[in-house]
C-alpha cells in the first residue's frame, strides 16, 4: 500500500487493540530499519534475523501497553532492539569471544558488487572499530549513516537534545580518528 495512505497514529491504535493486520503494516514499514540496526550492531546475518524477529514478536506482545509519549513509534522499536542486542552481546561474551570481524554479506542498496569487494577490507576495519565503540555511539552512527537521520530525529529516538547529539557525534568522530592511528585506513586523501 502506498505510504501516503499510512496514518501511523490510526494504525498504532488498531494494532494496540489487537489488530494483527495493522501490526503487519507496522512490520512492513519498520522491518528494514530494525534489521539494518540489528545487523550493524551484531555483524551477523543469522543473529540479525533471529533478533529482528524477536524485536517484532516482543513489540506485538507489548503493543497493548504502548502509549504515545510524544516520541516516535520507531524510538520504542529501537529501544526494544537495543535491549535485545545488549542481551545478545552479554550472552555471547559469557560463552565465547565475539567474531566481530564478520563481513557484511548483503549487498548495499544501489552499489556495484566489484566496488564493494575493493573497499571491503577498509570497511571491515572500520566496522570492527565501530563495534568496539560504546553502544550509544554505535547507535548514533547507525542512525546517522544507515538511516540517514538528522540530529533532531536521532535526538528524539535517543532521548537527547539536538545539540547533545551533535556534540556526541563530534566526540565519536574524534575517538574513531584516534583509534584509526594503527589502521590502514587513509584519512589524508586517496
Amino acid at each position, binding site marked *: 500500500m502506498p505510504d501516503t495512505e499510512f496514518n501511523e497514529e490510526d494504525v498504532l491504535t488498531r494494532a494496540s487493540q489487537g489488530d494483527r493486520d495493522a501490526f503487519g503494516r507496522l512490520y512492513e514499514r519498520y522491518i528494514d530499519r530494525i534489521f539494518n540496526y540489528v545487523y550493524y550492531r551484531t555483524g551477523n546475518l543469522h543473529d540479525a*534475523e533471529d533478533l529482528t524477529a524477536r524485536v517484532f514478536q516482543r513489540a506485538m506482545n507489548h503493543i497493548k501497553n504502548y502509549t504515545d509519549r510524544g516520541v516516535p513509534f520507531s524510538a520504542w522499536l529501537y529501544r526494544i532492539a537495543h535491549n535485545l542486542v545488549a542481551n545478545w552481546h552479554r550472552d555471547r561474551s559469557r560463552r565465547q569471544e565475539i567474531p566481530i570481524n564478520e563481513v557484511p554479506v548483503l549487498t548495499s*542498496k544501489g552499489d556495484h558488487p566489484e566496488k564493494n569487494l575493493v573497499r571491503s577490507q577498509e570497511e571491515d576495519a572500520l566496522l570492527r572499530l*565501530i563495534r568496539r565503540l560504546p553502544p550509544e555511539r554505535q547507535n548514533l552512527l547507525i542512525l546517522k549513516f544507515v538511516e540517514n537521520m538528522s540530529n533532531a530525529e536521532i535526538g528524539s529516538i535517543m532521548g537527547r537534545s539536538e545539540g547533545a547529539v551533535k556534540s556526541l557525534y563530534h566526540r565519536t568522530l574524534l575517538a574513531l580518528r584516534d583509534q584509526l592511528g594503527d589502521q590502514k585506513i587513509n584519512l589524508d586523501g586517496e
Partner: protein
Amino acid sequence: MKRSTETANKEAQLFALEGHLADALKPITPPSDLVVRMRERIRFPQREEIVFRLGGWKRLFLIYGGVMSGLLVTITVARAFFYFLGKR
C-alpha cells in the same frame, strides 16, 4: 599559521572519516525470503491465543470429535487391511 594548518588538516581528516563511514554504513536490504520467514514467525499464534482458542467448549468438543472420528477411520482401515491380508 602552523596552528591553522593543523586545524585544517584535522578538519579534513574528520571529513574523510565521514566519507569512510558513509561507505561502510550503508543501508542493506534484507533478503525477501528472510522478510517472509520472519513474518511467518511473527504471525505464529502466541501461547495465550492457543489457550484462548481451546477455551471455548464448543470448539473443544468439535476438535475432540474430529480427532476421535479420524482415529476411528484409521483403525477401521487398518483392521480391513489386516483382515484381507490374513485371508490370503
